[in-house]
């Protein structure tokens, strides 16, 4: 038996020369043969909804950042600048679909309906997970870079075995594309034609390392070697991201297998609140990307559509303020876990050894009560 191995098909990747874009910086609509058919229902009202979502997401981010600076939260990985790259795909998901994301994908948790009271616990160091994964259909935020891509792929394989049309969305960053797990996930997704979509937010930096450290070629070219179709998209264009996600999700849902989306965007904030980006990038670069702000662009587009922007901004502000108030209340008044939480949920039922250690800790705590 002779086996012929097809060469990687560059035609599997679109947007390599210039990322796919349908909203120009001035808010004008650019035609796209690929994306336009998936945006026919996006009228002024739908675009306004996406705008309000992005404003809310940004407000969640800036409020959490402030709460960290004020000592109410202990750490925050900001998403400033990446609102469109997350809101576009998040609003293309069905509620039944599962998201397996990293720690910066706050928009997915928010738009899937996470309770902010529990969400805040993670960043207050009160818990490792911020929601009920089965209720939200979103795995706990993953900190090990790229590990969740395999969980997403496994979920998608299982969905296919169940003859379900639920899909999995794996979210990771540019740095993760160097990890073995992401590459193994691409191998498996392709081999099993699993209904999983890989969303790589290329925000240009893995902490301090520019994307050039990870790759000498556009990240969106990589999946072609695995036989996975790929789209390189302007990650600051919420409509392009929404349309690209709709294409990928529909392909997965209808048995067409995996898709890779590279969202070309920029992390305007630090890696986390403990990072100092001034050590590794210059101001001019930041200004250049600030000019490509994903929210400003939609404001201009809405203006061009004739929207009453004063009313739209006012409405968005009310919604964002509500969210900020809710988050602040959660962060300021969250109830700290008791030390017993150390010992809970390690196993399905506590082992004798853990029960013993819990009793020992309690006895010790009781012994020093009032002596300090």
């Amino acid at each position: 038996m002779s086996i012929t191995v097809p060469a990687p098909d560059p035609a599997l990747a679109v947007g390599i020369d210039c990322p796919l874009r349908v909203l120009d910086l001035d808010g004008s609509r650019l035609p796209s043969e690929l994306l336009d058919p998936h945006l026919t229902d996006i009228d002024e009202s739908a675009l306004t909804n996406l705008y309000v979502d992005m404003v809310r997401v940004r407000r969640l981010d800036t409020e959490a950042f402030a709460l960290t600076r004020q000592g109410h939260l202990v750490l925050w990985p900001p998403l400033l600048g990446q609102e469109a790259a997350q809101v576009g795909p998040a609003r293309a998901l069905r509620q039944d679909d599962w998201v397996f994301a990293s720690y910066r994908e706050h928009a997915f948790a928010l738009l899937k309906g996470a309770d902010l009271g529990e969400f805040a616990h993670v960043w207050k160091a009160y818990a490792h997970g911020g929601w009920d994964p089965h209720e939200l259909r979103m795995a706990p935020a993953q900190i090990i870079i790229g590990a969740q891509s395999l969980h997403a792929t496994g979920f998608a394989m299982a969905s296919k075995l169940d003859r379900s049309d639920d899909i999995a969305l794996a979210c990771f960053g540019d740095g993760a594309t160097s990890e073995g797990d992401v590459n193994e996930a691409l191998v498996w997704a392709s081999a099993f034609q699993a209904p999983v979509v890989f969303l790589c937010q290329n925000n240009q930096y893995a902490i301090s390392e520019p994307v050039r450290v990870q790759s000498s070629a556009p990240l969106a070219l990589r999946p072609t070697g695995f036989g996975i179709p790929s789209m390189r998209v302007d990650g600051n264009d919420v409509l392009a991201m929404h349309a690209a996600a709709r294409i990928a999700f529909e392909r997965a849902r209808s048995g067409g297998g995996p898709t890779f989306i590279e969202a070309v965007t920029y992390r305007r904030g630090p890696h986390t609140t403990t990072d100092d980006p001034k050590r590794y990038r210059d101001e001019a670069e930041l200004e250049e990307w600030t000019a490509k702000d994903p929210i400003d662009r939609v404001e201009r587009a809405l203006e061009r559509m004739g929207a009453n922007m004063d009313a739209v901004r006012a409405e968005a502000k009310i919604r964002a303020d509500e969210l900020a108030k809710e988050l602040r209340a959660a962060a300021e008044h969250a109830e700290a876990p008791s030390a017993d939480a150390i010992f809970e949920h390690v196993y399905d039922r506590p082992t004798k050894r853990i029960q013993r250690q819990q009793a020992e800790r309690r006895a010790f705590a009781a012994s020093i009560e009032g002596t300090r």
Partner: protein
Amino acid sequence: MTTETLTLAKAVNAALADSLDADDRVLLMGEDIGKLGGVFRVTDGLQARFGEERVIDAPLAESAIIGTAIGMGYRGFRVVAEIQFDGFIYPAFDQIVAQVAKLHFRSKGRVKVPLTIRVPFGGAIGSVEHHSESPEAYFAHTAGLRVVTASTPQEAYSTLRAAIASDDPVLFFEPKGKYYTKGEVDRSITRDLDTANVVAAGRDVTVAAYGPTVETALRAAIAAADEGIEIEVIDLRSISPLDVDTVVESVRRTGRLVVAHEAPGEVSVSSELITSVVERAFSSLEAAPERVTGYDTPYPPSAIEHDYLPSLDRILDAVDRTLGRRSSRDELDTAMASTGAAR
């Protein structure tokens, strides 16, 4: 009660088949487990019987075998993953210790990971590097994982059924050197995943072992009986959690403890067990506990593996030391003491 005579490999096969039969959410994933039936033929015939969707030949990526099994768990599948050889498990280390072990804790108990990871382990099979290791201590060190072994076809059948039924993730270490050892299996016997088992009663010395070393310990007990020494042999069965109670109860009677396993002794199951027994039964000990383990070296080329592995004679030598009888180390210890060298 109906029993059948099965090799340990066939007992594992029967446990897999019966689990697949009993629960349609159980599925198997691993390298070469389908048409080939596994490199040890442990999964022989299962793909033909249950289909390619329930007995899945995996691409060669250990991290992905475990990582995708976690994802399947989110959808309610109970995956039994096979790692082909002990020494091939390390690419999956992160997924096992940072993901499988911690998801239940991370999610406050809301995500179950009912995954079983089968790992043929141990030496004495005359193979090349990476095919004869005993990596169980790495996993026993990690909270959230259960780590179990089997010493006989019956133990293999019953323990694997319990592992697959458990909502905790379980690493099931199969003594591959005993795959072709036969024994009686009664499929109606059930096991828990927490307890050790006294497999030979004795009043002089307790010898605790697990996996392939249990048989060696039992042969040592028979040999010692010729000299009038009664050895109590405990099959630990579970490495994590360790059933310290059963060992302590035995040591309270015998006053002497020898722990034997193939893995290196440094920071090992014997380190943990002896520490626990000393903490809990110090006053019952008549002699310092001894251990008989692999040396603190990489696993050697197999031409000399029998000098590395715990043997009947090395176990008896350690038993002699606990009884204050003459042992191989008497002159060595004297010589080393005179030169000031550490033991």
